[in-house]
């Protein structure tokens, strides 16, 4: 029925089957949108957050998806600026993933702020002393950049390509991609960093407060490093997942291995900096604020296991594995390591968002616990459902993987 819209030379299942697969995600999205409506209409009392636990599931989701979406800018930078042409095979998918992650994060932020109609206040009355100002400006700009980068991919649709003026625009716009990739890198650098810096400047929370390097706390740089390390791993995992679901090879194995190697090198660099930062914090920063660092790990829920898991199990171990060619040649080891890196970054964002707020800092403080309300979970699920829907529709109608056609042909030729 929709054959005339499908990319040429590749096979896609019938429309009814596709619609059936998408239906549960549409339901999930609808449930989430209802929860969002409740939060906007009734207020943030629909959530389990309060003045003490002001950051919850939503901010955790924001920080994690923004880190995972970093694959878009790092892949764009490597392809268009450093000319690593092998990444052409995944750049379209990276842009769609980035767009999903960033638009999802911005949407959930709008709900979290509680009054989306006043979102423009942040631009009109910005607070220059807040890291969030930098985050808001850069995030908005980068989302616009991602939308612009998505336009040429949409124009590659089989039917749209047949309109000469669209094809010419796509051709001309594509020539300017290095400019957008450069701008995207600058913007991502600053907003990833400022999201980390946001925690590092909190003097009232010695668990996350860090010394400054130049004008930024060390968490500024750690966030950038961890995001660019996790981005390629997430891209690798999604590519493999789409291959499994669609039942076809989409990229050559050496592209996946390159992503794995890149992620491995970057995570090792991150682990080194993180280890040094943690040692300085344990021996100097935290005691200087009157808190021996190990006091934070006295509670069973957040024992030292969480710190060690973050740095060693989900950082050093997969990093070392991905550095060895022989190991990363095994697809199971490659995927396992990439998954560990992604989980490690998710754990890091959890520690910074949830553990930070749960730990008491004043003598009369208690250990706080927080569990999200169903409205928070539903809104979270809506972002996931939106991502699955947008990605699936893009995969069905747009050439997200340029090597897919060639690989299908060589598979046919072999058969």
């Amino acid at each position: 029925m929709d054959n005339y819209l499908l990319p040429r030379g590749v096979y896609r299942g019938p429309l009814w089957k596709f619609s059936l697969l998408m239906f549960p995600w549409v339901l999930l999205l609808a449930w989430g949108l209802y929860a969002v409506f409740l939060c906007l209409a009734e207020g943030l009392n629909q959530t389990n957050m309060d003045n003490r636990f002001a950051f919850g599931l939503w901010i955790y989701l924001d920080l994690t998806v923004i880190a995972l979406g970093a694959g878009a800018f790092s892949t764009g930078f490597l392809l268009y600026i450093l000319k690593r042409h092998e990444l052409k095979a995944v750049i379209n998918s990276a842009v769609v993933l980035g767009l999903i992650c960033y638009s999802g994060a911005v949407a959930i932020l709008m709900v979290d702020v509680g009054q989306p109609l006043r979102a423009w206040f942040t631009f009109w009355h910005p607070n220059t002393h807040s890291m969030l100002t930098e985050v808001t400006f850069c995030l908005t700009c980068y989302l616009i950049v991602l939308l612009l980068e998505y336009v040429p991919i949409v124009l590659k649709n089989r039917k749209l390509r047949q309109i000469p003026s669209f094809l010419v625009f796509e051709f001309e716009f594509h020539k300017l991609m290095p400019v957008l990739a450069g701008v995207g890198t600058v913007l991502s650098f600053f907003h990833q960093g400022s999201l980390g810096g946001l925690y590092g400047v909190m003097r009232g929370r010695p668990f996350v407060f860090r010394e400054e390097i130049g004008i930024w706390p060390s968490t500024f740089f750690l966030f950038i490093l961890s995001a660019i390390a996790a981005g390629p791993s997430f891209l690798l995992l999604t590519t493999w997942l789409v291959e499994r679901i669609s039942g076809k090879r989409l990229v050559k194995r050496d592209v996946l291995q390159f992503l794995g190697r890149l992620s491995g090198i970057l995570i090792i660099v991150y682990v080194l900096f993180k280890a040094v930062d943690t040692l300085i914090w344990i021996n100097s920063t935290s005691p200087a604020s009157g808190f021996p660092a190990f006091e934070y790990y006295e509670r069973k829920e957040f024992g030292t296991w969480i710190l060690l898991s973050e740095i060693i199990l989900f950082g050093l171990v997969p990093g070392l594995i991905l550095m060895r060619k022989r190991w990363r040649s095994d697809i199971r080891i490659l995927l396992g390591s990439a998954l560990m890196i992604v989980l490690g970054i998710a754990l890091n964002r959890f520690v910074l968002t949830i553990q930070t707020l749960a730990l008491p800092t004043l003598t009369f403080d208690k250990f706080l616990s927080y569990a999200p309300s169903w409205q928070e979970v539903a809104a979270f699920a809506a972002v996931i459902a939106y991502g699955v829907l947008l990605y699936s529709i893009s995969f069905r109608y747009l050439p997200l993987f340029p090597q897919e056609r060639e690989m299908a042909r060589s598979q046919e030729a072999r058969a």
Partner: protein
Amino acid sequence: MTPWVYEFRWETGHILFLLLFLSVAITVAAAFLAALYRSSRDRSPNLQNRIIWKAIFDELPREARSCRHELAGEVRNRPCPNGFNCRTCVTHALLLRENRTPISEFPAVGLEIPEDRLYHRGHTWIKPESEDSVRIGLDDLGKRLAGSVDQVIFPTLGDKVEVNGVCCTMKRGGALARILSPVEGTVVAAGGSESDWFLRVKLSEAGKDLRHLLTPREARFWLLKELERLQMCFSGSLAGITLADGGNLVPDVPSAMKEDCAMVWEEMFLQP
């Protein structure tokens, strides 16, 4: 931070931040506007045709981009880097001078390849009729792929056509194929039936250079590759039950297909 905010005072930080933010915003807007401006500048048919051809050529699979010398067995593994424009290709000139020994045996293609014509990769041929005029038609494979078309839309007499630009359009059901012109010149006649149409073109000065077209010998090797490509098109669900090889191609390929021929036409007639 901004001047309209109560008790605002400018500081270096404000200026630096706003400058950085504005320069980023201006760069993004300028990139988008530049693309819009450039694409409006490219609206002339010549430029548009060249861009469309470049887009088509860049997306061609490797097996459809083989250099004519690779097809004829004179060199190994040489994809064309020039958009099939052998007029300016240094390697083509060099190989012609070297006069390498090609494969001596001609493959059996099962298609008519008249010796008095030159062939274009968009499945058209030209047959010189006088010093500056040629006749254009579909090659045998092109004719079989088209079958009995519903309509052929010819250019108006006096229209100019250029290499790899559109010289006419064929319609069959919902499928549409822009047939690419093999030469530059002015259309002086058009006619024939839907299944056997022709164009007569008076060549321009540049159009008299026909080095980019395949000789009948080269066309034989190329058409063999094209048949393989066609077979690939059918590998999905397009054509019911088919034999992998053996026998000749039916005279009306679309009539033997389960679905409309749009996908096959787009692939074989080099559509964007």
